[in-house]
């Protein structure tokens, strides 16, 4: 067959999978041998290196390799899927036929010839790839972080440092003739500090990274910044009081509080929940769901961000996607299946954890756009309330009920931050909270580049952001 020149960022899947384009075309056709609308092969080769330091020593290093392919057939709203990491012709044929069995038309379809293409995006042009960096250098980075953390204060008794660097090569081919590849770097350096004072122990956490190179930890976020932030949080918590309980005004800190947007809004705008009408938003497209000052976006194209990608895991070139504008619901996050069934354009949000998973609509980098209020004035407007500073995470149900776990916060008294507060849970329903966003600050910040979102058992790297936000009233779950 005709030789196709490899696209930018392509990885030589032929050498790792020991199969060629002709084999893939054959499998795509085999997958359509019983009919169906669409067939696709997702090939993945991922290397994850990790270093763990605790108790003042490098405990271990690891190298993890993920190699496999998944074959998908869509017939109407039905999906057949099979995966394998044995690439013998018999196994690939078996996988294609298994996926094919979802269509029962017994009228074979023919896949289009594969045409190489590439993404217009180049979102992670990394000059100092961690993958090529020596283990020595990476260990120095870990040790340096540890050094800063353990010397921050006498009360810091333990610092655990983790560094991981991942390189993920994907190639997607499908029956529409798509043949596209991407190589996605992902770095993460985290620090957990434990502080102790008169028998009381508390932990603080920080970290950073993204789709970046090693120079990120010199130019953008230094080991000392990460260490100091983790240590400071642990020390603050030593002095923290138990959180108040009940309804009160809540101010969300810029950056970390992006998780609120992720949970309260983002998940329920993923197209699958709306196509299935299980999300409270399914019948609210183009309707007003919140105050006019609210603009919310999901943007997979922010350079170097953890949640970004040149192509999604279905090979779609992603776009910045408006979700809410002027308080009005304007869009959903689409994957191929939902976009087709709903008759909406693709947005490039079909993602999967790895080759064993069917892609589903997911967020990437989700944020609420700047408003016009001065963050200090927002604080001053609260006489008595709760300031949510850092979060452990959040969860939402299709019904719109969500929680956020605040790992550290402050009391607001007379318009000022006063006592540090530990572990509290915020709870609410999304439609309600969108109505109650009273003021939006002008200080949009993104949270730590360390977040992972879970949905249907699949993990995906994400980022979220928001400016200072004032919620007029929210239930704070503390101790009475």
């Amino acid at each position: 067959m005709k030789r196709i020149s490899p696209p930018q960022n392509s990885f030589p899947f032929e050498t790792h999978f020991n199969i060629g384009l002709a084999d893939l075309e054959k499998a795509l056709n085999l997958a359509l041998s019983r009919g169906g609308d669409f067939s696709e092969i997702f090939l993945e080769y991922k290397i994850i290196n990790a270093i763990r330091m605790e108790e003042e020593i490098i405990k271990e290093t690891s190298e993890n390799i993920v190699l496999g392919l998944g074959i998908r057939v869509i017939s109407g709203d039905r999906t057949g899927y099979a995966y394998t990491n044995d690439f013998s012709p018999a196994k690939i044929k078996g996988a294609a036929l298994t996926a094919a069995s979802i269509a029962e038309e017994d009228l074979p379809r023919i896949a289009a010839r594969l045409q190489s293409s590439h993404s217009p995006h180049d979102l992670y042009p990394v000059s100092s790839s961690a993958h090529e960096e020596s283990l020595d250098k990476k260990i120095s980075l870990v040790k340096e972080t540890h050094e800063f953390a353990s010397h921050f204060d006498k009360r810091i008794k333990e610092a655990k440092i983790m560094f991981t660097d991942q390189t993920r090569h994907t190639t997607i081919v499908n029956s529409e003739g798509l043949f596209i590849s991407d190589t996605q770097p992902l770095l993460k350096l985290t620090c957990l500090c434990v502080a102790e004072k008169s028998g009381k122990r508390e932990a603080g956490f920080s970290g950073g990274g993204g789709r970046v190179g090693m120079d990120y930890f010199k130019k953008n976020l230094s080991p000392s910044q990460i260490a100091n932030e983790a240590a400071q949080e642990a020390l603050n918590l030593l002095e923290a009081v138990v959180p108040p309980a009940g309804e009160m005004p809540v101010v969300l800190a810029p950056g970390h509080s992006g998780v609120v947007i992720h949970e309260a809004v983002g998940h329920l705008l993923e197209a699958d929940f709306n196509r299935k009408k299980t999300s409270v938003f399914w019948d609210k497209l183009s309707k007003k769901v919140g105050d006019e000052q609210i603009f919310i976006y999901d943007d997979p194209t922010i350079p170097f961000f953890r949640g970004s990608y040149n192509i999604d895991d279905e090979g779609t070139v992603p776009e910045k996607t408006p979700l809410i504008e002027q308080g009005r619901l304007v869009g959903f996050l689409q994957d191929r299946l939902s976009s087709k069934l709903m008759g909406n354009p693709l947005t490039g949000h079909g993602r999967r954890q790895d080759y064993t998973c069917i892609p589903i609509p997911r967020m990437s980098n989700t944020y609420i756009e700047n408003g016009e209020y001065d963050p200090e004035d927002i604080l001053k407007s609260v006489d008595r309330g709760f300031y949510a500073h850092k979060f452990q995470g959040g969860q939402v149900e299709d019904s719109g009920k969500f929680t956020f776990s605040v790992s550290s916060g402050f009391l607001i008294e007379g318009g000022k931050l006063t006592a540090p507060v530990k572990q509290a849970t915020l709870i609410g329903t999304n439609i309600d909270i969108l109505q109650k966003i009273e003021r939006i600050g002008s200080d949009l910040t993104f949270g730590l580049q360390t977040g992972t979102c879970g949905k249907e058992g699949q993990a995906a790297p994400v980022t979220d952001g928001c400016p200072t936000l004032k919620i007029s009233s929210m239930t704070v779950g503390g101790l009475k």
Partner: protein
Amino acid sequence: MKKQKHPSDLMDLAESLVSFGRSQGADEIEVSAVEGTEFNVDVRHGKIENLVEAGSRYLGIKVIKEKKTAFATSSDLSKNSLQRLMRNAIHRAEFANCDEYAGLPPLKEDTFDQEVLDIYDPEISDLDAQEKIALAMKTEKIALSDRRITNSHGASFETKEIKIYLANSLGFKGAYEETIFSLGVGVQAGETDKKVEDFWSSSHRRFRNLETPERVAKKAVERTVRQIHPRKVRTQNVPVIFEPPMTAWLLGFLFSCVSGMAVYQRLSFLADKLGKKVGNEKITVFDDGRMRGKLGTRPFDSEGIPTGQTTVIDKGMLKNFLCNIYSARKLKHRSTGNADGAGVGPNNFYLKAGEMTPEAIIKSTDRGLILIRTIGHGLNPLTGEISRGAYGLWVENGEIAYPVSEITIAGNLGTILKQIDMVGNDLEFRGSISGPTLRIQELTIAGE
């Protein structure tokens, strides 16, 4: 897909890699190999949504050289790739620091009878796809036939067949196979802005022991409709009754606090409490990897240590932490057969049943909350603090009065263990962590 019946090639591969590693200069080597096949069907509104059938294999390596450790895993099982991975690991080990506690566990004689463990159901190969699809279809249909149900998250039927092989350079060689069958359904009730939802699922080692579609559907419906028209209650301290899935959730948190890994790093509030009273005498907790046919049953852990029964808490007294070999050496404890990958995991971790029926527990509660679901994170092993979003049923005069939502519960595991004043007789092993209905004397509920 064609399935190999009893492939021993992975055992051979593991053993040959151990030898290869030794020849390359490693002091100690452990190689594990896993082969899994899965079948999963999701149906929704009477149609197949997803059908997944697949198999995969992967391999894990642990290398120790001069008391320095390196790990590797791979799903690329080509010989070249694995040998390169092993050489890399041996090379990388030199970059770790010397750690006197590192090393494989000494070989321990043990025999187990796969038949007696009863964790593999040969019937798995007799089930055909149509039968599996029909089960999921039937379950959803029954659930949707209830007029109060307004939407479906779908029903799923899943089977897994897993074969595990382990070999190390001290001469351990072992293998076992296991099966898991699961049937579940999730539904919603109520209109768009006032939806409530829940699900129910049954998992078992043996196909014939799964709950019937009728039972699974009925439970999912009951659990959902009882939440319709919830109220919010005011902030207060009341007795809280944990339903068994909530007890399992609480025990999951307890597990993370008695895990040897958290304890040796002093990341658990129970780290200094061994041999001390941590709960009242109603609390007895075991971990047992040898219970017949249970979901947490396995003959040996991921380091080849035979599993057995460990008393974790005996009538309120903290007796043992759960350890892999590394944390055991750190704590001068014995390995309890809880190694799981590089960390520690539960076998069958459960709280011993009491004598009261759940009905009697509710009846004896004047005013309080039955906790039916929690959402969110909010667990801190270092302090024992718990703070979660909660759903429940309000109890007045010993009877269920109305559903409650948009509240949170907050408390401390250390206090809770001392305040459990009633333990139900309804212990069922529905997963690897299980417990009966419990009543906690007092927890803080935050609401209006």
